[in-house]
């Protein structure tokens, strides 16, 4: 995997550690809720991909996603939702909000890497 910069918006420290290990050698920017995620994104507009949880305190993943898609500077950054919310309606809601993929927890490392490599091979619109 390429040396990408990944913003992880997730309230579980365990899962943060998991991404840190799974996504080496990517640079990880960590945020523990949607609000912190927006602040970190403002400081790091050059992130290549955002990995987003749904259920978080202060600001949920979907609220965060709406803010991101409403901001032209960062709207084109691909967002992958990774959540325990696994109903079809949850998936559709996430994709309709602008996520490029929806992964249900627990997930396999290969599944996440496959999605990220798909992003790497897809030309980004400017």
């Amino acid at each position: 995997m390429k040396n990408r910069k990944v913003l992880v918006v997730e309230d579980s420290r365990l899962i943060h550690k998991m991404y840190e290990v799974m996504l080496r050698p990517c640079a990880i920017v960590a945020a523990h809720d949607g609000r912190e995620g927006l602040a970190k994104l403002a400081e790091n507009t050059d992130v290549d991909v955002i990995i987003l949880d749904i259920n978080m305190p202060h600001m949920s993943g979907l609220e965060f996603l709406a803010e991101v898609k409403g901001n032209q500077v960062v709207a084109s950054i691909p967002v992958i939702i990774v959540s325990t919310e696994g109903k079809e309606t949850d998936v559709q809601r996430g994709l309709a909000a602008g996520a490029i993929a929806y992964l249900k927890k627990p997930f396999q490392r290969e599944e996440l890497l496959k999605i990220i490599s798909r992003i790497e091979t897809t030309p980004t619109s400017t």
Partner: protein
Amino acid sequence: MSDASIPTGEAAGRGNDPLATLWRAKQLIREAQAAIDEASHSVVAQRTSAEIPVSELRLAQSENEKAELTTRLAQVEHQVGRLMTLYVATYQLHATLDPLDVQTTIADITVNMLGAEQFALLLRDEEEKTYEIRLQEGEMPPPWTKSARYTGGDPLIDASLADGMLRFGPTEDSPVLVAVPLRVQDVTVGALVILKLFEHKGRLEEDDRDLLDLLGAHAASALFASRVYSRAARKLRTLEGLIKLVKKG
């Protein structure tokens, strides 16, 4: 010179006419060349027909090897992912000495890595000789909702607490999916009881067994160590307070 002027073999053989001999030699060379060409074509044809199956065989072998390597690579990738999960779970369980943080990590592992929707964490209360329900996640069915303690009654959980063995359900008399005994130095100090998985998780897989075993050993020792540490830290603070009082007095 036309062929009509070429002496016949008989004529050539009869006399010592050098021209006729030359012509005869030329004819023989032509015949020999034709024979060589024919033989050469035959050999090439034979070689090609023999080499094609060999090449095809090699190609098929290479394709098989490629498929085998792809499968092995996928298996290795899967193993790497599994080991990473186990490493992260172990790391995070022992990354803190705060009992509440350890409990949060156990809950995180159970939800995010095992896909449990309903579960409870039981810890033995040495004074009461019962099990305190330290953690409940999801909408638990009765009798879990009514009590802060587990006093026995579920045969699967009771058996696991008694002999320290991991048990899978549900059974006729227990709705529990899995009871994971938490053991410290061969003593069962509690159990993690999973009652329901997320719908998309479906069922526990072979890989989950490793994570359940890990929880059985590491969750208990992490909890035990953090509780001992917090008790010691509390006593230390009390002693320091007393010493300050004595010094003031």
